[in-house]
């Protein structure tokens, strides 16, 4: 076991939590990510292997599925696999072992920062942040969106509960944009 201490994307030893009125923005460092891109001609095989890994049918366009290992759609025959960090720090290797040569797998854990937004008026916050029709997003929906000029993913965990993935190096800017929107509208 190595002895290097991790910091969160916002630079803390503990994840940051901000609450404005009834909405909470929580930094979520405890997630491992691996990208999966099916290789040419191996699409069906890759889908099948991924479905087995996440325990459900491979998510369709704009959707995510699976628990505790889940995947969200990121492009044609491409997905991002999510899993709890503590149990899956080596996720990329685990996914590669499961899928083999049917897909290219890349560790993406620390390429992203995740903020979970929860609360009654979370839609009003998201309305100031991203062009998605968030009021129409249902549980299991996942979409790309630009937030504060940053390429992000927005996942609807349940009505009133969203995850936003953005580039880790810009975590501070993304967090600032989210909290500013919360203070603006709530």
């Amino acid at each position, binding site marked *: 076991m*190595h*002895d290097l*201490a991790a910091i969160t994307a916002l630079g803390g030893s503990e994840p940051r939590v901000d609450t404005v009125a009834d909405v909470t923005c929580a930094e979520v460092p405890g997630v491992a990510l691996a990208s999966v891109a099916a290789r040419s*001609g191996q699409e069906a095989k890759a889908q099948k292997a991924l479905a087995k890994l996440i325990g459900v049918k491979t998510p369709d366009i704009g959707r995510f599925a699976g628990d505790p290992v889940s995947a969200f759609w990121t492009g044609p025959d491409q997905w991002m696999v999510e899993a709890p960090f503590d149990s899956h720090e080596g996720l990329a290797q685990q996914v590669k072992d499961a899928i083999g040569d049917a897909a290219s797998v*890349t560790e*993406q*854990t*620390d390429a992203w920062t995740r903020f979970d937004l929860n609360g009654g008026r979370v839609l009003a916050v998201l309305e100031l942040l991203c062009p998605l029709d968030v009021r129409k997003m249902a549980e299991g929906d996942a979409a790309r969106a630009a937030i504060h000029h940053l390429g992000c993913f927005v996942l609807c965990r349940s009505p009133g509960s969203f995850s936003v993935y953005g580039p880790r*190096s810009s975590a*501070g800017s993304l967090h600032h944009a989210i909290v500013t929107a919360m203070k603006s509208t709530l």
Partner: protein
Amino acid sequence: MTQVNRLSGGLIDRNSTLNFRFDNRNYTAHPGDTLASALLANDVRLIGRSFKYHRPRGVLTAGSEEPNGIVELRAGNRKEPNTRATTAEVYEGLDAQSQNRWPSLKFDALAINDRFSNFLTAGFYYKTFMWPAVFWEKLYEPIIRKAAGLGSLSMEDDPDEYDKGFLHCDLLIIGAGPAGLMAALTAGRTGSDVILADEDFALGGRLNSESFSLGDDSASDWAAATVAELSALPNVRLMPRTTVIGAFDHGIYGAVERTGDHVATLPVGKPRQILWRTYTKRALLCAGATERPIAFENNDRPGIMLASAMRTYANRFATTAAQRVAIFTNNDDGHRTASDLRAKGVKIAAVIDVRDDAPINYEFEVLKGAQVVDTKGRLGLTFVEVALADGSRRILECGALGVSGGWNPNVHLTCHHRGRPVWNDDLAAFAPGDDLPPGMTVAGAANGTLSTHGALQSGAESAAIALDLKGALPDLPKAEDAPINQTPFWYLKGCARAWLDQQNDVTVKDVKLSHQEGFRSVEHLKRYTTLGMATDQGKTSNMAGLAIMAELAGKSIPETGTTIFRPPYTPVPIGTFAGRMKGQDFHPTRLTPSHYWAKERGAVFVEVGNWLRAQWFPLPGETHWRESVDREVRQTRASVGVCDCTTLGKIDVQGTDAAAFLNKVYCNGFAKLAIGKTRYGLMLREDGMAMDDGTAARLAEDHFVVTTTTANAVNVYRHMEFVRQCLFPDMDVQLISTTEAWAQYAVAGPNSRKLLQKIVDPEFDISNDAFPFMGCGSITVCGGLRARLFRISFSGELAFEIAVPSRYGDALMRRLMQDGEEFDVVPYGTEALGVMRIEKGHAAGNELNGTTSALNLGMGRMVSKKKDSIGSTLSEREGLNEPDALMMVGIKPVNADDKITAGAHLMDASGPVDAKHDQGYVTSAAFSPSLDCHIGLAFLKNGGARQGERMRLVSPLTDVNVEVEIVSAHFVDPEGERLRA
């Protein structure tokens, strides 16, 4: 002062009184008042001075089309010039100032301009201030700018916040008058997602301005009840104070919501305005119509206003501009104003109707076939002079005159995709054409349906059609359905000064002059006379200007055409367009994994794209950046230094065709690169010029990691995706960026291996034999953390780059510093990095500047002839391969104390110094601590053959003239022994 002109009734809240100031005097108002209505209630008719002649002006309208009643709101850094008093809501403590006057509104010294009006006609500036040319910028323009114009800026930063947001709906209804409200009811009751936006703070449009009934209710009560029903529907979003400013592509409408303009102070963090990008499947324009004035002699005195505005002030705001008023009209609508005002107790001097067959009314005198020919009253209307049908004259005493010349549909948004309105003879006005923005329909008065019943019906029907609704429409309340009979009457013939565009002081005469001087296109008319420019964009003046122009040209109005309507519909503060993207938030910032550690060390940061990178790490006692940088270079070359190079782009390339793919994007060969090896690579653009350089490390048969320069990381990734998806879609290759995923540090210097051996887990042998120069591999560090190690060197020293998952980057940097203490380890920044790469002769962004080829960079032979790669063919172009082509060289001053300046040009040792004799230029320069003098990299004609030559380095603009010697670009360790050690 008491509100002497306050009438009974209205939609104001008399239970509450608001205090406000105008031109430093205190007044009172009620909630529901606009600044204009409150001033009129307080018997203030004079509100501003005109643009050019500084003539006294009052309000003309009761809405956003107002040309005259423009004021400065608030004070200090929140001051906002050119705000319409007719839309500004009064709040407790509102502070407003008139503008464009000196020293005071009542006595304005520049009103002298009015005396010289004969000289100040259209085109005056163009004709007068032509000579001498140099006077324009220094003398004429400052004087004109001071004399003419509208409000003044605070010259301070706006402290308020603005937001941007995104809305989605099935139907966007623009305007909440009778058509808009009925459309919203129709659509809302079916469960469709509806947004109903209106620029007013009270929804209802003209229903709030009229005295008639809708069904059993007053018009305003019906509007309020309808709004109440709509607000209870979860699928309907009511947006008062929201102006839809433009129709853009793909069903997107811009809407500005004024969330904070009506309150004295905004809570911290709350926006003053929000710019909503609204995505809608269908849009229904219910923007109503604007009454048009009539131009006659001195028709601009305070107290002269649109008759419909007078009715709005009376019915909605319970105020009148004067206790005795006259009406000048060419249609029945003017009579309605007279009736309503009379019902409120205002005396009607007379209704002057140009029509011989005007209806008679037993409540007030109607002068049929009569015209207002002149007015009196210096600071406010006192008398109007009327020419009666029999040719006689009559003077009427009145403090206000309502003018009604008919109505123009508000077609603006229908034209935002360059559609043209069409002339409607029945209306004698332009109505929406057929080429509307896709998805838009128009209802109510905006579509030329000017009766209330017609508006209600067309609103309901249009909503049903837009959303393809089946079933019965909601019941319509019984409403007035008067036939519309508009006969054009634009201006009185023979006037000396009849005002068309009151905001820009354009008279009928100016339009005639413009025509006389050859400006025949309406666009030219607009620019020559300024008709229809500025904050009101000619909403009350364009039509009359067109009509006069058509008359002069002997054409019809539709033949004459209109000017183009462009967004925004009404003025928008620049801050609203900027939103939160200002100052530090203008763009996102990227922080490196060692950022927090570097900040603790007191690093000086530099912006590189969005990244903040440590530039150098000053130590106590160091007073100049060079001291820090020189120390970092010396210490690295003497022992070991560490630099955060995470910012370099990292692209994961996988797939069975990964090697073949890289063979295409790099000009040099990659197919045979062994697993566990890294290779320097150069990418060319399609045109053969160098695009970017970097390395590709082969981690497996089907897996590479490509690095790019920091600046080009995004461009290279985009380029590679283009190549993958468009040029070679059959290749099995997958790309993804991993720039952020890994914290990567360069560990450079003779002791770099010893330092790394302390953290790399012992099962990995990183000796020179086991891990030679250009080696790479996956390893573990610090007891099992997955990591990647690359033996590559930018500094020219024995060097490695080590990468760990980003979250551990901070800890790894601290560990390297701690474990490196015994080696006197030094962190170095981008300056030292740059110095060392110049000493080593490595090209970077300064050299890969888009104008250089592989040949120029001394890498011509890298472009493989054994394979086809992007840019390789065009790199062989004639002209890129001339014998005297620029080649990268090193330069040193002959006198060691002389400085090399980047950007300076190389000239032969003797001969002229001019562009014709230019031999090349310096791209990078630095003081080299290793050589103890300045050095530089330069592109020199036939540079490869000119080593040892003495030349002059010149920059005539900055007085540089230094004797230099051409040397190898590899100043340090030219044989490469250190990096292979």
